[in-house]
């Protein structure tokens, strides 16, 4: 049976250097955005989702675990950061730290439950868990229910970077994104990442080789959830609110779509996918509910004919790992 990450090309020394070249190109392109007429707010938003999708892809692309509830980490970190900054007057860096820790704690608890099953069961369990979290946030007072937490002060990060200035905010978001991206890249190419890939390919064999696969999967889940939380925490300063949208299961579906469009199990795929989907939502907003239909169509087309995704197809064509 073909696995869901059939396109993933094994990383060799050469492909790692390809990836670093691609990374530098990406970093330079993103760094010059404020000099171009491109709307920086749009790029910031896309960067948050790109980080979210990369974190998600760490789990599916390298661990073979399809989480359908990743919105719970994005949303939890968002609420935690927003609450800490607005109600407790945390500085932005501590707000982000608090949000990330909240997401990490949640991923430990949910991971312990979810990794007990695999495949579609894992997907359904994560989905159900995130719906549980959604209902809890709908009822608890600190989230302000349907209204969400609004008007979050952006503050001054590390006492130097004034986040209320769009340019400063943009570069802070960009730097966080690039660092997290490098961290994910490093993880994938570490001995831990290699074991993870072997679990994806053949879990029974990994077990027989003496690896405690559950521990590896749990660690991957926690790492992925924590980084998804980082995306949610940073997003609070971009959007200046935290709302139920980020916890709803449609958000979990969206991150799957982003990763699928870009290429499951490719390093750059989720970034490209996130930009494509966010751009689509931005420019097709006037179509109202048809956006949902279009997203559904993209899902169907990707699954039926375009399973490698944009980056996956390119990587496959050039026989490189991207």
């Amino acid at each position, binding site marked *: 049976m073909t696995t869901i990450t059939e396109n993933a090309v094994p990383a060799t020394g050469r492909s790692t250097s390809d990836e670093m070249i691609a990374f530098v190109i990406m970093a330079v392109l993103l760094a010059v955005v404020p000099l171009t007429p491109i709307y920086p707010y749009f790029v910031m938003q896309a960067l948050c989702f790109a980080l979210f999708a990369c974190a998600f892809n760490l789990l599916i692309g390298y661990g073979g675990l399809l989480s*359908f509830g990743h919105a719970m980490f994005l949303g939890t970190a968002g609420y935690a950061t927003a609450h800490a900054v607005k109600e407790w007057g945390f500085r932005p860096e501590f707000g982000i730290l608090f949000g990330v820790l909240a997401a990490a704690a949640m991923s430990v608890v949910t991971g312990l439950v979810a990794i*007990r099953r695999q495949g579609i069961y894992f*997907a359904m369990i994560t989905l159900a868990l995130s719906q549980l979290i959604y209902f*809890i946030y709908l009822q608890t007072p600190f989230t302000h229910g349907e209204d969400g937490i609004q008007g979050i002060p952006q503050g001054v990060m590390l006492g130097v970077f004034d986040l209320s200035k769009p340019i400063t905010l943009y570069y802070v978001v960009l730097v966080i994104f690039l660092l997290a991206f490098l961290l994910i890249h490093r993880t994938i190419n570490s001995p831990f990442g290699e074991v993870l890939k072997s679990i994806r390919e053949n879990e029974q064999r990994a077990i027989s080789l003496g690896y405690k696969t559950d521990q590896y999967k749990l660690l991957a889940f926690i790492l992925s959830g924590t980084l998804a939380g980082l995306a949610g925490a940073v997003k609070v300063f971009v959007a200046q609110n935290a709302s139920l949208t980020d916890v709803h299961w449609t958000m979990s579906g969206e991150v799957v779509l982003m990763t699928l469009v870009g290429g499951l199990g490719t390093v750059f795929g989720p970034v490209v996918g996130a930009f494509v989907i966010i751009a689509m939502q931005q420019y097709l907003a006037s179509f109202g509910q048809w*956006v949902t239909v279009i997203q559904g169509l993209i*899902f*169907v087309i990707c699954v039926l004919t375009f399973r490698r995704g944009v980056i996956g197809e390119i990587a496959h064509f050039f026989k490189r790992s991207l």
Partner: protein
Amino acid sequence: MKVPGGSPPGIPSLPCQTERERPNTMQALYAQLLVGLINGSFYALLSLGLAVIFGMLNIINFAHGALYMMGAFCAYFLLTYGGINYWWALILAPVIVGGFGILLERTMLQWLTGLDHLYGLLLTFGLALIIQGVFQNYFGSSGLPYAIPDLLKGGVNLGFMYLPIYRGWVVIFSLVVCIATWYLIEKTRLGAYLRAATENPTLVRAFGINVPRMITLTYGLGVGLAALAGVLSAPINQVRPLMGADLIIVVFAVVVIGGMGSIMGSIITGFALGVIEGLTKYFYPEASNTVVFVLMVLVLLVKPTGLTGRAS
């Protein structure tokens, strides 16, 4: 002071209540139990359909909620535009929506054979978005009313509670359908072929049985069950484009709890969880939305394969 039809659902007894009103809170309990049984019927019908489809196609049909919604809309269209009543809708809607399901299977799902099961989940998720999006475009998000058929209007006083006839009908009718499906799959020759083909399609094919056609029909059957649940729910819940969207996630939790190991398992788990949810709504309404998910967590901690599930 007597509230007609019992206390409003979800409101527990208040400390200031007088003795005369006590029966009312008991009535509220029975009412919640009934609501739980009704929801349980929908959970059972939907998880049964999912189990049947999963058995043959190895696909978790994410579009199940959307197809359930189509069943309800189908009944609405038949009545509004064709003047076709509820009783015919009960037969026609599952056939029509089941036919649509067969079309989906023939044009899309069959191409996923041999691929990772997760692709089936993703494809049907996309289908659900498309179907729901189209209905939302044309009907907005608010509900359309569907009248209870004349024959099932009114209610009977059972002494301890007032039972609206339609609600009683839903519970009994779904039970009958569930048991009939169980009988079809577990006790008939056709069911035996089906189970054999699930185990070893190549071998069954060698006996001259058209397995691909069986797969298609099975998908149609599963979808038909979802549509039937939709028709049953139309007079109780309003007909809304998103009526299946949130329900399906609860049904997934039901499936995880039950384990989808057996047909009977799906049925019993479905009804049982509906009742537990109803009881929670009476005793601790704040948790009524979450109780199924909390149960799922507890079951997974104790028995990861689910209550009736076999190790995968």
